[in-house]
């Protein structure tokens, strides 16, 4: 296994965790046309595929896009090729979170973020999405 590079391993892991097949993409750009968080992302939804295919996982893992995806599934719903960009980016996020120190949210931050109306569900969801 030593001759398999880390990036190759990560790319394979992304494919496995996401269950998506980047080779199906025809680069139509409908995901990026759909994404409500497009402007916030540095790597755009239609680019996720080529980052995974090129094994450029480090850049993907370091991108802001990981934390901007809303998991709203609009790209999955509208993708004509069943590529599931949201699942790809989510798999990249999990790879980051599964490594030590990869959490995006610390319990220490919480008190400052609270307000009286905030539903419990929001905390639960954020913890699930931002931490291992």
């Amino acid at each position, binding site marked *: 296994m030593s001759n398999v590079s880390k990036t190759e391993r990560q790319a394979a892991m992304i494919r496995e965790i996401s269950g998506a097949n980047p080779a199906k993409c025809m680069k139509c750009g409908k995901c990026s046309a759909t994404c409500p968080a497009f402007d916030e992302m540095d790597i755009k939804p239609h680019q996720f595929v080529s980052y995974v295919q090129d094994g450029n996982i480090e850049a993907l893992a370091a991108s802001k896009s990981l934390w901007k995806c809303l*998991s*709203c599934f609009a790209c*999955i*719903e509208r993708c004509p090729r069943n590529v599931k960009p949201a*699942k790809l980016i989510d798999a990249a996020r*999990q790879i980051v979170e599964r490594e030590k120190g990869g959490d995006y949210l610390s319990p220490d931050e919480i008190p400052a973020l609270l307000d009286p109306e905030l539903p419990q*569900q*929001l905390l639960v969801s954020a913890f699930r999405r931002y931490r291992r």
Partner: protein
Amino acid sequence: MKYSYYPGCTLKNKAKVLDAYARASALALGFELEEIRDWQCCGGVYPLGSDEIATKLSSVRALADARDHGRELVTLCSACHHVIKRVNDDMQNVADIRTRANNYMQLDTPYTGETNVLHFFEVLRDRVGFDALAKKVVNPLKGKKIGAYYGCLLLRPGEIMAFDDPENPRVMEDFIRALGAEPVVYPYRNECCGGYISLKEKEMATRMTDTIQESASGFGAEMLITACPLCRYNLNMTANGLPVVYFTELLAEALGVKEGIEA
């Protein structure tokens, strides 16, 4: 008629009314929601990783409980509905998840997706029927122009949620019509409110709810209804936005059972 019922964490706290109005309305419509025993939090978001099992188990427990009672499982909160419905789909169709989840659970009878998961709206549409509902309305909400906010979680992925047309849904509009009010159709009713992003990125979420609010008021809506406490919270972040209420509150009002429930 009795249904197993999964309320979820927020309905026990910040969104107690969503739950209370639903129960009262259910009784008025002739069915009962029986809370399942010892339910646990669904986790709020569906674990997308195909290798995540532990995070799906609380849903499996609820589903198996409903199965053991021989009942359909009803949910109210969009997020709980989304998670439980998708885990149920996994248990039906993904052999690997099914095996591993059952290995963890050690149930007397392994769970293989037998339970039918219904959102409260689906109960109203498919079990009660909107015509029958309309007949039970005692305070028609005449003249109210109401925009339905669906959000993402009830509709997508359309294939699994099978709730309504994910791009042009109508169940909430039909519901509004049944209560005697006037539904306002606006194009952003199925666009994301920002979801969990609002915890750390209020601005970003607000930009998104602004678009939704603006679209709804542009088409003449006077208020918005939703099934999800988080959607409601986010939509309320828009300055001078339309008021957002839970759909069960309107239902209880129209059925004349709203009085006496603490808002």
